[in-house]
């Protein structure tokens, strides 16, 4: 019935603020209202009365919304993100593989290998958090993800940032345990040391931010933590390598670093683009 459709659209717009972006809940309540109205009309009630009856039976949207705010959406995995995480884990293993011989060498060399391995994995974890954010921000340009998938993204992002805190923190502690005569002072304000501390601090801020805003519906803005995290890692890791005497590889050259930072800033701007904006243009 087109009249019902029109009225339910109005109803949906009016109650949306109470449901904090839970589109699935609104779909379900709308379907329920439709069933009630149809049933009442089939029993001979005039449409206006049937609608009033259905709304009254449904209850106050503010109260229903308050109840729903206590129920987290069911987590449903987002397949692209699973694949991305597996790829990142494999990449991480390749990156730390060259440290394996040093790990078994014993003594300070092992200690340094553990320090470097943990710190490197910590940095990569932080980067995975940024990749999670990038994937989400790009995907939402084409379609809105389900609340369960958004919940999954939140948890994955929190996991990687928390893992980064632990790995970098423990890695730095191992670095502190290395003897002075072999590895120099614990903190000598070298670029890579300052970068490491910066990454540790930002991963801590990110993890706390994800935890603090875990119930927030503003997922795109939340993902900015991860993107800024990537910039911090690029500066603190690649930037430190590029500024040191042992700059090797394309990644540790300043033009590439600037390009990476610029692309992250560009992706960050997508957080403020409307959901599905590219899809609507295509149709």
């Amino acid at each position, binding site marked *: 019935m087109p009249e019902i459709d029109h009225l339910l659209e109005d109803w949906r717009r009016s109650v949306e603020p109470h449901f904090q972006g839970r589109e*699935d809940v609104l*779909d379900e309540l709308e379907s*329920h209202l439709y*069933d009630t109205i149809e049933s009442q009309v089939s029993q001979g009630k005039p449409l206006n009365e049937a609608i009033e009856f259905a709304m009254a039976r449904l209850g106050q949207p503010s109260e*229903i919304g308050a109840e*729903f705010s*206590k129920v987290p959406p069911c987590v449903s995995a987002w397949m692209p993100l699973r694949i991305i995480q597996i790829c990142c884990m494999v990449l991480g293993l390749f990156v730390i593989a060259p440290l394996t011989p040093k790990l078994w060498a014993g003594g300070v060399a092992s200690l340094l290998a553990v320090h470097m391995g943990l710190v490197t994995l910590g940095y990569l974890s932080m980067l995975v958090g940024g990749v999670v954010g990038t994937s989400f921000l790009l995907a939402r340009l084409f379609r809105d993800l389900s609340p369960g998938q958004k919940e999954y993204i939140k948890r994955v992002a929190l996991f990687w940032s928390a893992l980064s805190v632990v790995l970098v923190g423990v890695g730095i502690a191992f670095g502190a345990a290395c003897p002075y005569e072999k590895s120099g002072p614990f903190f000598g304000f070298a670029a890579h040391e300052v970068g490491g501390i910066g990454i540790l601090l930002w991963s801590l801020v990110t993890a706390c931010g994800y935890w603090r805003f875990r119930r927030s519906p503003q997922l795109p803005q939340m993902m900015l933590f991860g993107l800024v995290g990537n910039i911090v890692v690029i500066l603190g890791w690649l930037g430190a390598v590029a500024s040191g005497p042992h700059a090797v590889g394309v990644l540790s050259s300043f033009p590439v670093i600037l390009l990476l930072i610029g692309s992250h800033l560009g992706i960050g701007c997508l957080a403020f683009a409307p959901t599905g904006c590219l899809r609507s243009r295509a149709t």
Partner: protein
Amino acid sequence: MISLIHCIAMYRCAMYHAAMKLTKDLMAASAVPLLLSILEGGENYGYAIIQKVRELSSGEIEWTDGMLYPVLHRLEAQGCVKSRWVEAESGRKRKYYSLNRKGAQLLAEQKQQWSVVQSTLLQLWGPNYA
């Protein structure tokens, strides 16, 4: 005469039923076992569940319709029920819920607990209890 008494008795009974309202606490406590029991009978959707409860309780259990859904979603988040959207021939979608293994276990526990409450009350209210 007998039929008149019968009519009055029925009227009183109806009045009693009309006046009787389950307390909010009892409604809340019984929501989960009622939902799980209905879903034990097969996949179902919100509106039909409410109608079923209303019908079985002769209208005495009157949920505020919208309040059913947070309970269903909580059960889903706890892994007791699963859901899927089904598109009807008319093109409209309905979300169907069904019981899974964890939900069946929860229902078995709920049945035991409510049976204990019921048998205790029946003994207390029975003629043998002075």
